[in-house]
């Protein structure tokens, strides 16, 4: 399928390249960075962003944006603790929370697809409603037990040296990657994002695509909240706050267009890894908080620019080597 969307795979590859370069720099600076323990940490933290940005990727591809992600993450953790505190088995509670997240996302979809509300406003308001609901629960009413064991296990267990979360993430990424690149559903998502009117006239049920995208985003954000809560061992209202921009930035750093229609989930994976590596490596350089921020911003810009122009260069070279002959006409030409 890289044949079908060559330009995207170039940008995905360059995002991975960016991540690798950063990792290399950090490792050269302090060798502990490449230790098994650190890599494992990086994978786990990336997975949180990766899950938070999973539905976000699809939403962005379809031409939308989901600002309710952080609140759905808080919902994931708090609702889980709440239900588990009421005695629900952990696994069941996790499944129900993810379903409930999907349902909330679906409401976002209804607002965007049917009422035609601007996605930013719809999802922002939905975030407010979720927040209100969580406040009404009594934010802290997590009972003595806090986060159920199932969530902690999901977040912290390992298979051999590899964290379970990272494995799950890999499997999900492969799945989503296939769906986006090779299924009719994926093609419809890209079509809606590229131009919804053309998509509609091409017989695509634009509303349904949007509903599904937002529902997926709700579910994945809730799941991200569950594993984050499991990992941290507690939940609180603002637990998802850092993931608002991170979830979008991962998508964009991964090469997607914020206007929709262009990008891949593998790009997002690369974006999540890049953001995590970057914020993990900068403290090594002993900067003040202020300096850290400046450097973080500049490195993001420089990195994205380098990977972009690197990607463009690769694309150009590839094009040059593949078709050296000029003027391939568009039309069949028949000799007289």
């Amino acid at each position, binding site marked *: 399928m890289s044949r079908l969307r060559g330009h995207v795979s170039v940008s995905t590859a360059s995002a991975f390249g960016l991540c690798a370069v950063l990792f290399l720099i950090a490792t050269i600076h302090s060798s502990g960075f490449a230790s098994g323990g650190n890599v494992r940490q990086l994978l786990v933290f990336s997975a949180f962003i990766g899950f938070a940005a999973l539905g976000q990727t699809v939403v962005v591809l379809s031409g939308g944006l989901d600002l309710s992600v952080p609140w759905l993450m808080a919902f994931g953790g708090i609702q889980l603790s709440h239900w588990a505190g009421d005695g629900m088995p952990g696994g069941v509670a996790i499944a129900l929370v993810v379903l409930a997240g999907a349902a909330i996302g679906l409401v976002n979809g209804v607002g965007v697809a049917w009422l035609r509300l601007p996605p930013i406003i719809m999802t922002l308001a939905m975030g407010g409603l979720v927040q209100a609901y969580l406040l009404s629960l009594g934010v802290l009413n997590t009972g003595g037990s806090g986060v159920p064991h199932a969530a902690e296990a999901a977040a912290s267990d390992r298979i051999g040296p590899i964290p379970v979360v990272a494995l799950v993430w890999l499997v999900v990424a492969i799945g989503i990657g296939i769906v986006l690149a090779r299924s009719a559903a994926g093609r419809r998502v890209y079509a809606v994002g590229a131009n919804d009117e053309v998509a509609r006239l091409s017989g695509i049920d634009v509303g349904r695509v949007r509903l599904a995208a937002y529902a997926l985003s709700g579910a994945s954000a809730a799941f991200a909240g569950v594993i984050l809560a499991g990992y941290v061992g507690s939940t609180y209202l603002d637990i998802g706050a850092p993931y608002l921009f991170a979830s979008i930035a991962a998508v964009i750093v991964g090469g997607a267009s*914020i206007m929709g229609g262009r990008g891949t989930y593998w790009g997002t994976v690369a974006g999540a890894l890049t953001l995590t590596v970057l914020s993990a490596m900068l403290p090594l350089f002993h900067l003040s908080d202020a300096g850290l*921020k400046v450097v973080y911003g500049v490195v993001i*810009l420089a990195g994205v620019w380098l990977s972009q122009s690197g990607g463009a260069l690769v694309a150009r070279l590839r094009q040059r080597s593949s078709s050296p002959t000029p003027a391939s006409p568009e039309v069949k030409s028949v000799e007289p």
Partner: protein
Amino acid sequence: MSTASPPLERAPRGARLSLPRIPLGTAATALLLLVLFVVDLNVQPGLWDVDQLGMLVQTALPLVFVAAAQTLALLVRGIDLSVGGVFAIANTMTAVWVGADGGWLMLIAVLAVGLAAGAVNGLLISYLNFQPFIATLGTWTAYSGIALMILSTDGGMVPTVLSDMLYASWLGIPSSFWIVLIAFLLWRILRASRFGHQLLAVGDDEERARLNGTPVRRVRLLVYALAGACAAAGGIMLAGVTSTGSPTSGDGYILLSISAVVIGGTSLAGGRGGFGLSLMGVFSLTLISDIVTGANLDVWVSVAASAVLLLVMVTIRALADRRTARSAA
């Protein structure tokens, strides 16, 4: 000489249409704004006092200017997250560099710094082909760091000329109203300039704008530079209102400005909308939170109420827009 233009045939259709055509959606937003205002007057009778109203407008001033910045960016199919950082730089500069005795000239210099910061965004976006989201995400972070370097925590002294001006009134009307009015007039001037036309053209369809000979990249650069200056003006306003500098004060305005602009009806897809609409968005948000505070609801109820009011507002607008679209078809 105005009569020199020939009395052109006025088709009945033309005559009917020559009334200022206010789109239904805009009218709906304006009406809802009015309703919110009336409700707020009932919830908070104190607002009948024009000075009290002036105070309300005053607290909205920073958002007014950040929304202006965001409007510009959105109009050219972009987005500006760096308003948070530019705002903070201007805010802290006002409190630290300008200081209590600083004058207008120095405040203008702060605006120029904002202009330059915005121009960096413009360069990244139009000449290095960054997506606006990433470009301004990067500069936002960097600018926030710079603001923290200028002032590590809340403090500093704000020029008295600024705070005096903000708390003064003119012709019996609080200065905050005048500031909003002037900002709006400046926008009308910008809109009426040749640059204003180019700006809309670029936002509407870059390719067509180019075919028309618009220097697309230069226009974009200028737009982001202006957005930087507007965001800086917002930072200065907050410094004036609070008499202090705060290095983290800008971040809260990023999402807020985007929502205000979108509520007003400026499209994320560019080319459609304007600062007048954004003003309606800003004051809708201001009134909604004022009503909710004034109504003294339970914490979670008030959070929910804000969200619901927002949704109602935007839904009605969306329905009105759709109606217009249908009747136009």
